[in-house]
């Protein structure tokens, strides 16, 4: 497999804060990579830089060979994101939301119809297609929000806390959907839920205070920390020493 994302010494400084410190990391094509960390660890800032929402202070990242610094417009055509808050047009119907996002991204009628069919099938949204987004439950709104990120068939999908605030059934439902996407595209997932990372990830990265403390598979994480679960290993690494697999 080749690297879908090559991050090189990526750094983001705000006025009184260094949010991300010289982050370097390769993520393979088709991989589901989970980025874990407590609040303020730098996960969302990293995603914002990789999706061109914010410019790095220094360093660079290549998405399928395109630089987020020098070719952000080309990167935009390769990635999509589902942010931690639900991001839908509330007064539009489910179908109108999908049509709007497809049109904004310049999909042809055929591409739009194909994308809509796939999304309706995978997410079960056909039954609520004529409902306004504002009338959907939180779980359905989040499903629609993630579904919109798939309209453009991105090569890299960023999921920032996709199940935050959802009940356990809705969360498991989204896990099933995310699992179904594995292998079809490269997925970067940030989450606070350790069991989510444990269930879905090919590899895990642990960020703490803007730095990457660990990168490796679950098994490597257990071995490096001497713990038997991702949660215990995470606590050990973040509150204790650091290690790189």
């Amino acid at each position: 497999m080749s690297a879908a994302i090559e991050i090189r010494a990526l750094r983001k400084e705000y006025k009184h804060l260094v949010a991300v410190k010289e982050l370097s990391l390769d993520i393979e094509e088709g991989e589901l990579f989970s980025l874990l960390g407590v609040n303020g660890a730098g996960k969302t800032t990293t995603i914002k830089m990789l999706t061109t929402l914010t410019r790095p202070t220094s360093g660079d990242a290549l998405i399928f060979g395109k630089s987020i610094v020098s070719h952000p417009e080309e990167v935009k055509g390769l990635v999509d994101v589902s942010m931690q808050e639900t991001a839908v047009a509330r007064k539009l119907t489910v179908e109108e939301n999908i049509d709007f996002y497809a049109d904004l991204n310049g999909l042809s009628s055929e591409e739009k119809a194909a994308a809509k069919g796939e999304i309706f099938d995978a997410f079960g949204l056909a039954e609520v297609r004529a409902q306004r987004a504002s009338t959907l439950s939180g779980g359905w709104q989040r499903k629609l929000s993630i579904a919109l990120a798939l309209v453009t068939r991105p090569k890299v999908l960023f999921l920032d806390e996709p199940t935050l605030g959802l009940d356990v059934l809705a969360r498991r439902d989204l896990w099933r959907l995310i699992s179904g996407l594995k292998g079809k595209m490269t997925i970067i997932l940030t989450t606070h839920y350790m069991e989510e990372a444990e269930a879905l990830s090919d590899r895990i990265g642990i960020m703490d205070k803007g730095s990457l403390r660990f990168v490796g598979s679950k098994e490597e994480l257990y071995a490096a920390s001497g713990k038997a679960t991702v949660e215990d290993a995470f606590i050990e690494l973040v509150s204790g020493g650091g290690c790189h697999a």
Partner: protein
Amino acid sequence: MRESLCRIYTLAKRNVKEIMRDPLSLIFTLGMPLAMEILFYFLFHGMTAQFDMKYLAPGIVVFSQAFLSLFAGLLIAQDRSSAFLTRLYVSRARSHEFIFGYALSMLPLVAVQSVLFFVVGGIIDPTIWSVGVLWCVLLSLVTALFYVGMGILLGSLCTEKSIGGVASIVIAGQSLLSGMWFPPDGLNGAILTIMRCLPFKNATDLMQRALAGFTGAADFFIPFAVVIAYTVVVIGGAIFAFARKMRAK
């Protein structure tokens, strides 16, 4: 270029749906001004010239446009406060495309406003019917751009919670500084000078003079130039403010 126009059209189409599906925006931009036009005519007609239909109808058109500042601003502030706009920033749409998408989405409502208020005004007082009505409908698109631009600027700067209060200053400005509810000639010189320097009275004068028939080039060009100058400033400011917020995301 074609891609950019398609994105502007797509954004505008979505915004039109958002506005038309909000009952409050229709009540404030159409219902309330219409009720004021009818009530004020029948209550105050003959007391001052302001309530003759030839002044009242064009005045109400501009007054109703001031509410566009509120609803354009509210739409942008709501979009900004949610992750929806963040999602759109990841698309290839540029800041000026967002601005034109918001601005264009208001124009169908502007056209409905001016046609509605002139048709109702013309039914109440048929003497207003003239070619001036057509001029007014056309010029209302120009004056509306100032208020929509102001809404976009405020929506780019204010939060969802503060936009209502700040936009109400524009509505109050239109009410108090346009001279549409009382004869401005009786005011002291300083206030009248301020009114002439601001866009509110000029927008109202432009529409009222268009309906009456312009008596000379200055009659048209002075208020037109003032409104256009303010429009360019607020739309330029809106693009700048919106682009800054985009980068800040």
